[in-house]
C-alpha cells in the first residue's frame, strides 16, 4: 500500500513534482506513466525516503518510508539498476543486501536463479554487465527480502523482448498473490500491457488516473461515413456531442451501438465505426511527450 498525498518537490524555481495525490493498492499493478523528466523518478525517490519532499506526504504500508523497520523486508525498491559499485560482483551485491536484511544466504542463490543469472555471471563484476543484466540483478535485489510492496523505476529498460514479457509475468503473478506493485515507464504500450491502474504524469502533475479499462474506454466512438456532416447533424438531434476528427471522420461521445443506430435511422452509410479505445490516452500521452521534447530542444 502506497499513499501519496499532495506531494510537491521544488528545486529552486523548478517544480519537479507538483501537488500529486494517488493510492497504490495491493493485488494490483499500478503503472506510473509519463515522458522522461515528468517527475516519475523524483516522486519514487521521495516514496523511498531518498529525496525529501518540499511539501505533502508519501507513506508506504501506512508509514513514512524512513520509519519502516528493516524496510528491505517490506518494500522492494529498484530505482536505478546502474547505481551499483562497478567493482563488486553481482553475487556480492546481493550478499551485502542479504546480510543487511538478515535473510538467509540461500535466498541469494534463489534470486539469482529466478532472474536467470548463472553462477558464472554472478561471479563477474558489475562493470562487465549489460544494462539488461544490471536490471535483472536490480530486480533480484528488490525481491530478495520477500517484500509486500514493489517500487520499480523503469524496470523494463534494457531488457530484451523476452525479458520484458518475463517481467510482465512476474509482476502480474506477484500482484495476483496480493502484492502491491508500482512501476514506472515512459512507454505507453509497456504500461498498457501489465497495469490494472494507470497514473499519467506530465510536468510534475497527474494528468489522468484510473483503472486501465476506464482510461482506455472513456474515449467514446470514432466514426467515418460517406456523409459526416449529415451524420453529425443526426447525432446532434439525439443530444450527443460530436466533434470532427483531425484526420476526417467524427469523434462521438457515445457508445458505438448508439452511433450505429442513429446512422441506420438516418440512412447514412458507415465506412468505419469503432470505440475510441486507447486513442484518447495515447493522444494525451503523445501531446505530453511532444511538449517535453519541444522544451528539450528549446533548452
Amino acid at each position: 500500500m502506497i499513499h501519496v498525498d499532495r506531494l510537491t518537490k521544488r528545486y529552486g524555481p523548478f517544480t519537479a513534482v507538483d501537488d500529486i495525490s494517488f493510492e497504490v493498492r495491493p493485488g494490483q499493478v499500478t503503472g506510473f506513466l509519463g515522458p522522461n523528466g515528468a517527475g516519475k523518478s523524483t516522486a519514487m525517490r521521495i516514496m523511498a525516503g531518498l529525496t525529501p519532499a518540499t511539501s505533502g506526504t508519501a507513506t508506504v504500508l501506512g508509514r513514512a518510508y524512513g520509519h519502516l523497520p528493516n524496510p528491505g523486508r517490506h518494500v522492494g525498491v529498484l530505482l536505478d539498476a546502474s547505481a551499483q559499485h562497478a567493482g563488486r560482483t553481482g553475487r556480492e551485491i546481493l550478499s551485502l543486501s542479504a546480510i543487511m536484511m538478515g535473510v538467509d544466504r540461500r535466498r541469494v542463490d534463489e534470486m539469482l536463479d529466478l532472474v536467470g543469472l548463472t553462477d558464472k555471471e554472478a561471479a563477474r563484476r558489475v562493470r562487465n554487465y549489460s544494462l539488461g543484466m544490471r536490471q535483472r540483478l536490480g530486480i533480484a535485489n528488490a525481491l530478495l527480502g520477500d517484500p509486500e510492496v514493489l517500487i520499480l523505476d523503469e524496470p523494463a529498460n534494457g531488457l530484451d523482448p523476452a525479458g520484458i514479457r518475463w517481467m510482465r509475468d512476474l509482476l502480474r503473478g506477484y500482484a495476483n498473490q496480493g502484492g502491491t506493485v508500482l512501476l514506472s515507464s515512459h512507454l505507453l504500450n509497456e504500461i498498457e500491457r501489465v497495469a490494472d491502474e494507470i497514473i499519467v504524469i506530465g510536468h510534475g502533475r497527474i494528468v489522468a488516473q484510473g483503472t486501465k479499462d476506464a482510461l482506455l474506454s472513456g474515449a467514446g466512438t470514432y466514426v467515418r461515413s460517406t456523409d459526416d456532416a449529415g451524420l453529425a447533424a443526426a447525432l446532434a438531434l439525439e443530444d450527443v456531442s460530436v466533434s470532427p476528427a483531425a484526420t476526417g471522420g467524427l469523434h462521438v461521445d457515445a457508445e458505438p451501438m448508439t452511433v450505429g443506430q442513429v446512422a441506420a435511422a438516418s440512412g447514412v452509410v458507415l465506412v468505419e465505426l469503432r470505440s475510441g479505445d486507447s486513442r484518447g490516452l495515447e493522444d494525451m500521452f503523445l501531446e505530453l511527450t511532444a511538449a517535453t521534447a519541444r522544451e528539450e530542444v528549446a533548452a
Partner: protein
Amino acid sequence: MSTTVTEPVASPTAESPLRATARIPERIPGERPTAAIPFPRLLLVELRKMVDTRAGRWLLIGIGAVIAIALTIMFFNESGHHRFEEYLTATTMPQAILLPIVGILAVTAEWSQRTGLVTYTLEPRRSRVTWAKFIGAMIAGVAAIGLSLALAAIIHQAAITLRGYGGDWSLDNNTLLGASLFVLLGVAQGVGFGMLLRNTPAAIVLYFVLPTAWAIVGDLVSWLDGAASWLDMNRTMNALFVVESMTGEQWAQLGTSVAVWVALPVTLGIWMLHRAEVK
C-alpha cells in the same frame, strides 16, 4: 538500404537467457520483521564493503605493505639497532597518510558509485549507516596498529637474532597511545571530510592539500603561523609522538585543531548527509 541489428549494449559474452515463464519468488517463512536492523549487522556490511572490491582490498594491502616497507628500511638502517618503540613509531606516519583514505572511501563510495541508492533504502536511518562506517574505519585503523605492532615485534626480533642487537622491548603506554591517537584522529578526519564533500577525489585532494596549504600560508603570513599552531593538525598532532611531555597548551592546541578538522566536519557532515538527496 541494408539494416544491421546490433545489441543495444555490448556485453563481453552472451547473456544467459531468462526462462520463458517467470516464477514468483517463494515466501520467506515467518513474519516480516518489526525490529530495526541490529547495528552489528550494519557494521559487518560496512567492514565487508571495505574488502569486497579490488580498490578497497588493494588499499588495505597497500597499507600493510607500507608498514612492512617502513620496518624493512629501519632494519637495514644502522644495522637495525633500534628499540622496539622506534620500530613502532616508524610505522605511524605511513599509516596516518593512507588510513584516512579508508575512511574517506567508506563514505564517498555511496555517492560516487551511487550505491547509496540501495544502502539508504535498506537503512533509511542514515546516521546509523554513518556510524557503522565511522566505527568500521576505526576498526581498520586499530587493525593496522595491531599489524604494525606485530610486524615491529618480528623485525625487532629479527634484528636481535640476525644482527646481534641487544634489543629493547620496552613499550611506553604513552607512546602507544600517542601513535594510536595520531592514526585514529586521521581516520576520523577522513570520514568527516568524506561526509562533508561526498565526492571521492575532492575529499582525498582536500585531505592531502590542507596540511601543505597550512605550511605555505603559515610561512607567508606571520599571524597565520600563530593560528597554525592551534589549527594545523599536522603540527598539533606531532606533539603526540612525545605524548608524555605534552604540555597543557599542546593538548589545548590539539583539542582545538581536532574540534575544527574532525568534530566539525563529522557533525556538519552527518547533518548534511541527512538532508542530501540520494540520486
